[in-house]
Structures are given as structure tokens and as C-alpha cells.
């Protein structure tokens, strides 16, 4: 038979053992960084601090009361660890890079090193965790009473002490123990290897105890089947069928948030992590640990319901079942297991919370009032931090105790824990946003957490006092001042949900909406932008750290003072000596570089949090030449320079294309020039031929002898014809140059274009007949008036028709003439079935001195016809183009605006 005295003595002895373990663990870890304590196994076991007495006692009670719901508390974390690559790896990497010490530090660091946010997170965590600590106190108290209550003998020295007194004693002992344990010194990275060793040991103890009880129950019950069958026969079976409603999803979501955001989980998973690769093992090993923990919970609950007397507390089945069967050693093991799970939780939770309180609330206050004057003894801040942490631990346990004191009448353990989970889950949206959403802003995160917290207080925290306070009961029943839609468990008239789901739904929904909307509406500060990039792109950029102090004017001496205050003289000196050795100078001559100041800030952040470290160094590095804002301005200017250079590049591209065009034009010019030369020689030749004949004939005529009148007559007429030809050539040249210079002008007046075309065809009739060319008459427009000069227009048509005749060498030559009125324009097309114009010449044929190279049977023209025609048509505001011919040869299109057609 166990007695309370014996059990308490065992518990004290067990705590003593833990203390010894922690002490030697610390020594060993310090002496050897590759020791067993840095292994993934110990890391995984330390994470299992997640399984508290809520698991050990509460899950059995929960299973007995509401079936499988207890499983969600372990399935949620399983999912987080199965997906460790996506969330936990990121958290661990960022926290290593930024020397993060707590969840509050993480959020504050991400959102511009804001201390206000850190204070908010810390306060909410401390208040939110109070029910959770109360749960542990209640579990330990109940377990001691379960042992003591079984007999008069069992009470021992506890006789006359009620549960409040017992709980107070436990809380006080825990506070003392945690202070001795966790606040012996301030560590660089807030890692507590000794504590972790003790926690890992406790994890093994509680697993062994619960498995022991489970195997014993299965053995006594005669196997799983008889246990479940007997329960079914008695009608007391745990209600497994109705578990999958809104509560199932809610508790799953809450447990996902809790495994990341609970201060102690953040501490062991992220801060105490010494090697990122440990997550690889923890990813499957921690879910496996939880599976083993949960394996026998349902059998224990079902068996307890069948054999234990009606009215016994199902939360205590794991302890009372072995006692019922008189198995004292097993009962003692179960008690130690439950005690282990409670102590490990309380120790780590209060250490984690005390770090947050001291770093984010007490340190900033001290910094504000000490006005930057380092105290005489170098250990000042270090010592102050330790005192602050001890006070915080006492405060945190007191809050837990008071919560226990006020709600001691409610029975079950699990609902209390879920109240804490809902509070802690309010950090989860902000944490996700911090890691994945670049635009999440400080104001958004602060407003979201505050809004979620307010809803939690109203919907979850307040109603938990319903059983002790009639006022609260009234409030829950009717709402404040009778306003029904403000009732804490039916906010905005939503009364279909279970109270927990209701609180979780409203608080998280409002939290997420606030975070999104406020972040979208507000602007990030410069520091926030830098930090958000560091966090979101942690895997993208090389982990090169940018110090936020740029060109500091701080002397090494000033910095050393600051470092000494926080880190202690020895570590500060070591830090400075290492830095000096790295750049190869004497430590006295060390010039603090921005990189060094950045490193120092991170080291300080490891002890006092990012926000405090930043403030502290800002005081010393105040006279810095370049402030952060200026830095951002410089970045903006750089951006502008980049934009300017992009503009330059664009301009230079334009220049390149212009140069290309010029080059093309130049090529064309050269070609024209060469054609002109060719043409000039042609003209010279053309001019020379008649001149030669004129000269020779006139020389013959000068010598009158030997020629008769008939010959004379012939010679004179030849001279006449040659001079006419010469004149015509010169006329053409003059005509074109006059047209181009705009000298030869005529008045445009309405003329009948169709008549001009008809006249041209008549003029060319003889030419066509001579070449035996068939004229194909296409559709004609009929009488159409255009602005122009009838003779000139006729000249253009004649030129086009005679060209078609001249260059056509087809056996059955065809000329096709069509005219029409299209879209207010008179359009004439003159097409032939000749060889057409080669691609290379198409751009040139309208130029002066240009002549078709192929197909011309006689090269008598001067190559000016088309150039003149185009000039003429242009003066009539029309166009002359070469278009694809329907007959396969060339086709010229004349387009002239019709008079009065708009």
C-alpha cells in the first residue's frame, strides 16, 4: 500500500535525480560538443515535452468521456513533423541565423525588431499559458490525492491539507526547482543542455510508465478483445463513433498551431536545436513517440470504465487501476510517470516564458532607465537578467496557481488545456505570415494578435470561470447588459457550434482577416522590409548577414562596455579577440566594422532578444554617419541609377536602329549614285550618238561637192530628227528636275480622269498595234472627276502604257486596264503579263535615272518616265504604286482622290 508521504518522498528524490542529471548533462555538453546529448535521439525525446500530464492523465479521461478526440492532439503535431521540411526547417534556419531566443523574439525580429509586439506576445503567452500550468498543478494534486485518498493510513502528513494547500506547495516547489535548474547562468544561444538532458530522461520515464500501465491493463483484461467486448456488454464503451464533428477539426487545427507556437515547444524544437539535420530524425521519431504514448490510452480508458466503481475520476485511471489491483510498484511508476510529464512541462514552459518576460519586458525597462551608462561592475546586466528570470518564473507559476485556485471545481483536465491551446494558436497566423508572406506588416501582425486575444478572452477564458462566479454565469447565459449577440459562447448569434470550436473559429477568423487587411493597408518601415526579406528568402540568399548599422562611429571601447554588460567579461573579451585575430590586428587596435557590429548585435540578441540588442547598440552606435533611413534612400537612389541606365540602354538601342536605317539609306544612295553614273554615261552616249551623226552629216554638207540634192535632203532630215531626239531627252530631264524643285506648277482643277485615260489609250493605239498587243478592257468607273491637270494625267497614263508595251516580251502580250472608285478614290490599274519587276528593283524603279534591266527590247528611254509620273501624281495628291499583277507581270496602280468625296 502506498502512502502520500512515501509518494512525496519519492517525488522529491526523483527531482533530486533530475537535478543531478541536469548538472552533469550541462558539464558534459559543454566539455564535448559531439557528446550523446547533441544526438537527434535526445533532441526528439526533448520535443516530447509536448506530452504533459494532459496526455498521461487527461487523455485517458478524455477518451473515457468523448471517445477518440484525444487523438487529434497528437495527430496535428504529427502532420507538422511529417511536413518538417516546409515549416520547421525554415523556423530552425531563421532562428539560427538571427539568434532567435523565443517566439516573441521571432515575431518582433521579423516585424522590424519591434519591442511593442514582443511585449504583446509575451503578455498573451503568459496569460494564455496560465490555464495550462494550472492543469499540471491540478494533475499532480489529484494524483497525490488519488494515492492518499485510498486509505486513512495513506494520508500521512497530508491529513488536514486541502487540495489548494497541496497545489500551492507543489507550485512553490516547482518554482524553486525551475529557478535552480534553468537560471543558473545566461547562455549565448539560450540553450540549456542540462535541462534538455533531464527532459529527455523524463520523456523515457513517462513513456515507460504509460506503456507499463497499458500492458498491465491488457494483461489483466485478458487481451484487447475481451476488454472492448465487456465494455460493450456493460454499455460503458467510450463513444468512438461521434468524435468526428466540428470539435475534431478544431482540436486538430489547434494542436497544429500549438506544436509550433507553445513557448516550450518553440524552445525545445527551435531554440535548443543544435543541428538542423536532427529534424530529419525528429520528423518521424516524434510522431512515433506520440503513437506509442497513445497506443494504450483507449484500452486503459475502456477498461477503467468497466472495472472501476462508478463515479471515479477517469482522468486518474492510469494511476488508480494499478492501485485497484494492488500493484504498488506499478502504481508508483505511474505516479512518477505522471509527475515526470508535469514537471518537464512546468520547468520548460516557465523557462521559456521567463526568457520572454526578462528579454522583452524587463530588459527594455532597464535600458530605458539606465540611460546608457554602463554600471561599474561588468556583470550588471547578466546578473539583472538572472534576477528578472527568477522573478518571472515565480510570477508565471503564481498565475497558474491562481487560475487553479479559481477554477478548482471543474473536473476534467483536457478542456483546460484546450483553452491554452486556443490562446497560443493566435500567434500561428502571424508566424506563418512572418515566414511566407513578404508584405505582412508590423501593424497587421500586432492588430491580428491583439484582436484574436480579445476574442479568446471573451469566448474562451471568461466562460471557464462560469462555475465559480455567478456573474460570469449570468454573462454567459444572457450576454452583457442582456445583449444576446454578444454572448461569449454564441457570438454574433452563432450558437450551433461547440463552445471550443466557437471560440477557435471566431478568434482565428478575426485574427487572419485582421492580419490580411491591415497588412495590405499599411506600409512597412525600412527595417521591416529588410527583416522580411531575410525571413522569407532565408533559403534563397546566401546567409550573408547585413548589419543594420552601416558606418558606425562607435569605438571598440564603447562596444566592449556594452558586450561586457550583457555577456560578461570573459565572453566579451573572447568575442573581441576572435574578431581582432580574424582581421589580423592587435585587440586594442580593433576598428569595429559594420560586419563586426552586426555580429555583436546577434550575439547580444542571443541573450536579451533582438529588439533590446538593437536598442542597446543603437545607443552606442548613435553617431553613425549613415542611418538606416539614409541607407534605404541610397538604395532608392541606386534603383534610380539603374532605371536611368536602363533608359540609356533603350536610347542607345534607338540610336542603333537609326544608324541601321541610315546605313540602309546610304546603301540605297550609293546604288542610286552608281546608277546615276551609269545613266550619265548612258545619257552621254545617247547624246553623243545623235551629236556624232549631226556632226558628220553637217561636215559632209559643208563640202558641197559629190552629193546630189536627194542625198542632201536626206542628210538634213536626219540632222533634224537627231536634234529633235536630243531636245526630247533634254526636255525630259529638265521637266523632272523642274517638277522636283516645284518650279513647274499647274493649277489643279476638276478634270475627268476617265477621259484622260481614254485619250491615253487612243494615243498608244498605234504602239499597241505595232507590238500586236491585246488590250483587255476590265471594269471601268465611268466619268469621274479628280483634281488635276488633264494633259499631265494623260502623260502619266501614256507613260505607264508605253512602259507595259516596251518591257513586255511575252509571245501573246496582254495589257489589262481597269478603273474604279473605291473609298472615295479613283483607282486605275494598268497590268501586263510581261516578266514583271524583280524584287531587287522594286524600290528603285520610281527613282530618277532608273530603268528596268530586263525585258526591255529597246533601251531608248532615259529612265525618267516613272519618276516624272510619280511626281505628277503626287502633285495631284494621289499615289502611284507597284502592286501584284493579276496577269503575272507588273501592275501599276494610280490612286487619286475623287472631287467632292469627303
Amino acid at each position, binding site marked *: 500500500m502506498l502512502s502520500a508521504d512515501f509518494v512525496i518522498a519519492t517525488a522529491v528524490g526523483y527531482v533530486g535525480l533530475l537535478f543531478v542529471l541536469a548538472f552533469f548533462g550541462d558539464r558534459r555538453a559543454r566539455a564535448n560538443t559531439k557528446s550523446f546529448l547533441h544526438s537527434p535521439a535526445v533532441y526528439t525525446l526533448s520535443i516530447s515535452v509536448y506530452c504533459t500530464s494532459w496526455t498521461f492523465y487527461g487523455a485517458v479521461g478524455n477518451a473515457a468521456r468523448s471517445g*477518440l478526440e484525444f*487523438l487529434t492532439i497528437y*495527430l496535428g503535431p*504529427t*502532420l507538422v*513533423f*511529417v*511536413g*518538417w*521540411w*516546409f515549416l520547421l*526547417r525554415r523556423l530552425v*534556419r531563421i532562428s539560427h541565423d538571427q539568434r532567435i531566443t523565443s517566439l516573441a523574439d521571432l515575431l518582433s525580429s521579423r516585424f522590424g525588431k519591434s519591442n511593442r509586439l514582443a511585449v504583446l506576445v509575451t503578455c498573451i503567452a503568459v496569460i494564455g499559458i496560465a490555464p495550462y500550468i494550472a492543469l499540471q498543478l491540478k494533475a499532480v494534486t489529484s494524483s497525490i490525492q488519488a494515492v492518499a485518498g485510498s486509505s486513512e493510513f495513506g494520508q500521512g502528513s497530508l491529513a488536514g491539507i486541502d487540495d489548494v494547500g497541496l497545489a500551492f506547495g507543489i507550485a512553490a516547489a516547482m518554482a524553486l526547482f525551475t529557478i535552480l535548474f534553468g537560471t543558473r547562468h545566461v547562455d549565448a544561444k539560450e540553450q540549456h543542455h542540462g535541462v534538455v538532458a533531464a527532459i529527455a530522461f523524463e520523456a523515457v520515464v513517462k513513456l515507460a510508465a504509460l506503456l507499463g500501465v497499458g500492458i498491465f491493463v491488457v494483461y489483466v483484461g485478458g*487481451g*484487447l*478483445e*475481451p*476488454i*472492448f*467486448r465487456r465494455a460493450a456488454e456493460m454499455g460503458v464503451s467510450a463513444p*468512438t*463513433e461521434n468524435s*468526428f464533428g466540428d470539435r*475534431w*477539426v478544431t482540436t*486538430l487545427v489547434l494542436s497544429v498551431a500549438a506544436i509550433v507556437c507553445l513557448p516550450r515547444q518553440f524552445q525545445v524544437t527551435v531554440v535548443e536545436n543544435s543541428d*538542423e*539535420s536532427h529534424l*530529419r*530524425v525528429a*520528423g*518521424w521519431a516524434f*510522431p*512515433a513517440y506520440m*503513437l506509442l504514448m497513445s*497506443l494504450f490510452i*483507449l484500452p486503459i480508458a475502456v477498461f477503467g470504465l468497466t472495472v472501476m466503481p462508478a463515479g471515479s475520476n477517469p482522468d486518474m485511471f492510469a494511476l488508480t487501476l494499478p492501485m485497484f489491483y494492488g500493484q504498488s510498484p506499478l502504481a508508483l511508476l505511474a505516479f512518477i510517470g505522471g509527475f515526470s510529464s508535469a514537471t518537464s512541462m512546468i520547468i520548460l514552459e516557465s523557462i521559456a516564458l521567463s526568457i520572454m518576460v526578462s528579454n522583452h519586458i524587463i530588459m527594455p525597462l532597464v535600458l530605458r532607465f539606465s540611460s546608457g551608462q554602463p554600471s561599474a561592475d561588468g556583470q550588471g546586466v547578466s546578473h539583472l537578467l538572472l534576477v528578472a528570470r527568477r522573478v518571472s518564473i515565480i510570477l508565471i507559476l503564481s498565475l497558474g496557481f491562481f487560475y487553479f485556485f479559481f477554477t478548482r471545481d471543474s473536473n476534467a483536465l483536457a478542456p483546460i488545456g484546450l483553452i491554452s491551446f486556443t490562446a497560443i494558436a493566435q500567434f500561428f497566423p502571424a508566424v506563418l505570415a512572418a515566414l511566407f508572406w513578404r508584405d505582412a506588416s508590423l501593424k497587421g501582425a500586432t492588430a491580428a494578435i491583439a484582436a484574436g486575444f480579445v476574442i479568446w478572452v471573451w469566448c474562451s477564458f471568461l466562460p471557464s470561470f462560469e462555475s465559480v462566479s455567478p456573474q460570469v454565469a449570468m454573462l454567459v447565459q444572457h450576454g452583457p447588459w442582456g445583449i444576446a449577440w454578444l454572448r461569449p459562447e454564441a457570438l454574433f448569434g452563432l450558437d450551433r457550434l461547440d463552445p471550443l470550436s466557437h471560440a477557435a473559429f471566431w478568434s482565428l477568423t478575426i485574427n487572419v482577416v485582421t492580419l490580411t487587411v491591415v497588412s495590405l493597408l499599411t506600409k512597412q518601415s525600412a527595417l521591416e522590409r529588410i527583416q522580411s526579406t531575410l525571413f522569407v528568402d*532565408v*533559403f*534563397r*540568399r*546566401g*546567409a*550573408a548577414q547585413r548589419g543594420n548599422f552601416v558606418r558606425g562611429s562607435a569605438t571598440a571601447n564603447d562596444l566592449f562596455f556594452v558586450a561586457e554588460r550583457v555577456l560578461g567579461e570573459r565572453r566579451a573579451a573572447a568575442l573581441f579577440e576572435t574578431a581582432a585575430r*580574424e582581421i589580423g590586428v592587435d585587440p586594442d587596435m580593433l576598428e569595429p566594422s559594420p560586419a563586426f557590429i552586426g555580429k555583436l548585435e546577434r550575439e547580444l540578441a542571443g541573450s536579451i532578444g533582438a529588439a533590446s540588442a538593437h536598442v542597446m547598440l543603437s545607443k552606442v552606435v548613435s553617431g553613425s554617419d549613415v542611418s538606416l533611413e539614409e541607407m534605404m534612400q541610397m538604395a532608392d537612389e541606386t534603383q534610380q541609377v539603374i532605371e536611368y541606365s536602363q533608359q540609356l540602354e533603350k536610347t542607345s538601342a534607338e540610336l542603333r536602329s537609326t544608324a541601321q536605317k541610315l546605313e540602309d539609306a546610304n546603301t540605297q544612295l550609293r546604288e542610286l549614285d552608281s546608277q546615276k553614273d551609269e545613266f550619265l554615261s548612258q545619257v552621254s552616249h545617247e547624246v553623243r550618238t545623235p551629236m556624232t551623226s549631226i556632226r558628220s552629216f553637217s561636215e559632209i554638207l559643208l563640202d558641197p561637192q559629190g552629193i546630189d540634192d536627194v542625198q542632201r535632203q536626206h542628210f538634213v532630215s536626219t540632222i533634224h530628227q537627231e536634234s529633235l531626239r536630243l531636245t526630247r531627252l533634254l526636255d525630259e530631264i529638265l521637266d523632272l528636275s523642274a517638277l522636283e524643285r516645284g518650279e513647274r506648277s499647274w493649277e489643279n482643277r476638276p478634270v475627268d480622269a476617265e477621259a484622260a485615260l481614254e485619250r491615253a489609250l487612243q494615243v498608244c493605239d498605234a504602239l499597241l498595234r505595232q507590238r500586236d498587243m491585246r488590250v483587255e478592257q476590265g471594269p471601268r468607273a465611268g466619268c469621274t472627276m479628280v483634281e488635276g491637270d488633264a494633259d499631265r494625267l494623260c502623260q502619266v497614263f501614256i507613260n505607264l502604257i508605253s512602259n507595259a508595251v516596251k518591257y513586255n516580251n511575252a509571245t501573246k502580250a496582254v495589257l489589262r486596264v481597269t478603273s474604279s472608285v473605291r473609298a472615295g478614290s479613283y483607282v486605275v490599274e494598268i497590268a501586263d503579263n510581261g516578266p514583271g519587276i524583280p524584287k531587287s528593283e522594286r524600290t528603285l524603279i520610281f527613282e530618277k535615272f532608273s530603268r528596268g534591266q530586263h525585258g526591255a527590247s529597246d533601251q531608248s528611254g532615259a529612265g525618267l518616265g516613272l519618276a516624272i509620273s510619280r511626281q505628277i501624281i503626287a502633285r495631284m495628291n494621289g499615289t502611284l504604286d507597284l502592286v501584284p499583277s493579276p496577269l503575272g507581270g507588273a501592275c501599276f496602280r494610280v490612286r487619286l482622290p475623287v472631287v467632292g468625296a469627303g
Partner: protein
Amino acid sequence: MLSALCALCWVISVEPRKRVSAMLALTVFGALLLVPPLVLVFNQPISHFGVPQIVIYLFLVWLGLIIGTAWLSRTLAPDTSGKPDGLEDE
């Protein structure tokens, strides 16, 4: 069903790049298997070996997640993304 699973395992074992995607799929599908409506499919008043079917189902999914994660984590290449290169040299 089993052969499809084997084929999947084989594909992932020969294509290391797909392991991270496989991990995401494992997490997402694991979550889907644990919430209504899928969970309701197995929530029948049947017992195997005296244990309600739904309890066996949940523990089997759980075990599957553990084994899947162990296998994927073991074969995953060492993660070097974002680590500083040659920082020691400076």
C-alpha cells in the same frame, strides 16, 4: 492499389528531385485522410479483433505517415540551400 504504391516508391527512389514534392503530398494527403469526410468512410460500427474499425484505421494512417516520413527523410539529399559558401575563408 498496392502495385500503384510500389510504382510510386520506385519513381521517387530513382528521381531524388521529386522527394520534396512527395513530402508535401504526404503531408497534405495525410491531413485529408484524418478529417471528415474521408474519416467518416471508415467510421462504421464494425470491430476487428475486438477493436473498433475506426481506431485501427486512424492508427494505420498514423503509422503510414511515420514510415513514409522516415523513408523520405532518410533518402533526402543534404540540404545546402541558403547556406553561406566559404564563410570560413573570410
